């Protein structure tokens, strides 16, 4: 990470492709401030009508889980198949359930 304060900080970019859908992470840009980040993101990520709204978030503001923690975090869901509807046996003939 360059610590020179003349370097533009990194911004993570989220694009909403269509009204009503969620904003999805698409990548990042460097920019001096939020407004410039939006403009740069517009140029970098929406040249083919990919979006109708942009969120920019300072990359430094994002905390992420560590890859080596993945097992600890996510394995507990592996044996909980009862969280899925297909786990249950429905009586023969029952409809709309």
């Amino acid at each position, binding site marked *: 990470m360059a610590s020179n304060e003349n370097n533009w900080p990194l911004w993570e970019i989220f694009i909403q492709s269509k009204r009503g859908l969620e904003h999805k992470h698409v990548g990042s840009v460097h920019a001096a401030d939020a407004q410039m980040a939006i403009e740069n993101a517009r140029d970098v990520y929406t040249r083919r009508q990919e979006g109708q709204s942009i969120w920019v978030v300072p990359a430094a503001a994002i905390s992420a889980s560590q890859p080596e923690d993945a097992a600890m975090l996510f394995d507990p869901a592996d044996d909980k198949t*009862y969280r899925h509807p297909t786990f*249950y046996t*429905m009586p023969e003939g029952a409809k709309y359930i």
Partner: protein
Amino acid sequence: MTQVKNLEDLFQAKIDADLKIEPKDWMPEKYRKTLVRQISQHAHSEVVGMLPEGNWITRAPNLRRKAILLAKVQDEAGHGLYLYSACETLGVSREQTIDDLLSGKAKYSSIFNYPTLTWADIGAIGWLVDGAAIMNQVMLCRTSYGPYARAMVRICKEESFHQRQGYEIMAVLAKGTPEQKEMAQDALNRWWWPSLMMFGPTDANSPHSAESMRWKIKRQSNDELRQTFIDRTVQQAEVIGLSIPDPKLKWNESTQHYEWGEIDWSEFNNVVAGNGPCNKERLAARNKAHADGAWVREAAIAHAKKKARKEMMAA
């Protein structure tokens, strides 16, 4: 004034074109207020809804049922959080929203003011209460406010097991000993009418409905949803050999719908007014949980501050 009128026209044009409204869009104040009320009530219902079911976690009949019930109650907590977040996008703080629940100012679904007396009630809640909620929530996946609609899509996906696990409990009990079958029937008897009340007043007596439909917050009326629920559920009861506690229930061949009896609206109004069997108990439980958790919230803030100080000194 004319400017607001134009904004309102533009807003309605967006709605009419089936475009979603997003948090930063202009919206009529009444639209915002209606959503804040509806989404926060919905969130509170998820949270308070954990109480009647939580009552049976320690007494679930076997480990399988216990794990399932835990997973379901966990989901309800998560669904409350999705909805509180959606509510915050409308400019109200989380603290204020929760304070309104704790003070009794905000409402939640009246169904949770009924007690869970037997294990069969857990089956009846999953089958009927979640079944009724899902009818409403499937409709809300297409509601006009973006964050609410997106929360509902997630919730519906996760809830798909809730109704099935409840129906499975009922089916197993109904096939069990005569006592078990009777327990299932008794639960159905007690939960049937309150479940029908979940859809709210009749269309004729629902003053805000027309506006909510015009704004596409709601997309089907209370009576329509209630009728669909009845049509589907009666068949499911027949399959497992239980009977719906409504002597007037009758299939109408020409309308292709069931005709059914009369909801006791005085009971509904009484429970909404705070006089149901468990209103006081539910609110007391939420207040106690909130008060008991105060030290955790304070400790977490103190810890975060201490860590930030240490990191600053190390830098």
